[in-house]
């Protein structure tokens, strides 16, 4: 699993890809655009996100097919598999746990240091 460490916290690009595809099948450009717009790609360029799509496909979490019936140029459309949905659910649980943990710390507000140093 590769993380983008340029962010203040670690973002899992694979999770972002799976998340982008959770509601509908998308072609590569649209997946990349959504991830870039979310700010989740960090320093990764658009072209560097495609290898993650291919990796996820090899792991069986995505399937893809070239659609030629769109009237435009052929497009490679990606879709989540059952395994991909399961992985996304796991990512979501981890993410929610992380967010609630960070939230609980941030929401506590500033605390006064107590001690004998005046």
């Amino acid at each position, binding site marked *: 699993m590769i993380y983008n460490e340029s962010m203040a916290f670690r973002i899992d690009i694979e999770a972002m890809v799976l998340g982008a595809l959770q509601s509908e099948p998308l072609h590569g*450009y649209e997946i990349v655009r959504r991830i870039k717009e979310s700010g989740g790609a960090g320093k990764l*360029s*658009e072209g*560097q996100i*495609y*290898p993650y799509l*291919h990796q996820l496909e090899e792991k069986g979490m995505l399937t893809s097919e070239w659609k030629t019936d769109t009237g435009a140029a*052929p*497009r*490679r459309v990606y879709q989540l598999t059952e395994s991909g949905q399961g992985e996304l659910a796991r990512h979501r649980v981890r993410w929610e746990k992380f967010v609630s943990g960070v939230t609980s710390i941030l929401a506590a507000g500033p605390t006064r240091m107590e001690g004998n140093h005046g």
Partner: protein
Amino acid sequence: MANLIDWYLVELQLRLDCDLPESRVEEILKEAEQHFQQSVRSRQEKNVSLEDAVEDAIREYGSPERVARAFLRAWPHRVLGMKPEWAAVAGSGVALFCWCFHWMTLGGYFDNFGETWQNGIAGIVGFAALALLFRAAQAGRRSHWAVVACTTLIFGAVSVPILSVWMIPNPDQKEEQGISRLHLSRDIASVERTIAKLGEYRDFMSRGIREYAAAASPADLSSDLRDPALAGRRFGDDWLIHIGGRERTFLVPYDGVFAEVDGRVWALLTSSSLINAKVEWLAKGPNDLAAIDRQQASLSQLLVSARQAQTGRLFFFDPRVYGEALVGLPLVLPLFLLDLAGYLASASRRRWLKRVFA
């Protein structure tokens, strides 16, 4: 402007071609082309000029080098079922072990002639390991170049102190010879035996020079000077017992004298005619006596080193010990240098990319 995208795709293809299957490269390029078309179209819809839209799309997609590396890292390269970096680790390790096998055998001593079956096997396995290292470097030189290069260099660097401590070198011997720190007591006794045996050979050869110079017939010679089996039994050298045949009855000096730390000495050969034997003794006898002296002096120095090792001296960074191990390491560098040269050679094609990514 489509020309710019074509140039980009050519640059990307050049960086993928040698490392990925053709079908995969085609797929990547087709998808990249589709991406550019959509990216340019969506920018033009926001009233960006075609020229700017193409340049923006290419810039956002990333430089061909970065993108190619990302694809290469994602591609499951396997060399003998291993990732390239692990194959490099295995190849370097086995190759280094085999190069140094004569130092590391359980025998513990260096076989000067490489004639033991262990050395033969080590040679074959070593070449196979070298091939594996090359294959790993080739497979991973783009995607994992840092890992592969570092692994190889680290192995070389680590082998230097390990071998330096492990092997006791002979400080004044041109031919590599040394003994293992793990077998100090046994090998010190062996070296002492070899030195003593060389002394016996010197006496034997001095007598040989005298007797053969004066001999008019075989009967004028001592029996051991015309009987290899007898000489072999005397010196404990089995190979002398079995050398030659019934017709090769005269012992003659070997061309040089070689002594092993385990006690084996090569100092004699056989000849079938007395005349030839007389010529051989005349020509080679005195030289071999001098060679015996050199071998004895050299082994005596090895003994000194070994005794120093017994008292705890470490022989760090003696090039006679680790030199061979380092010889092979630069072999992987040409792959990286070729790659770099190819990249630099495409400078003209990259000029426009430089402008885009400036």
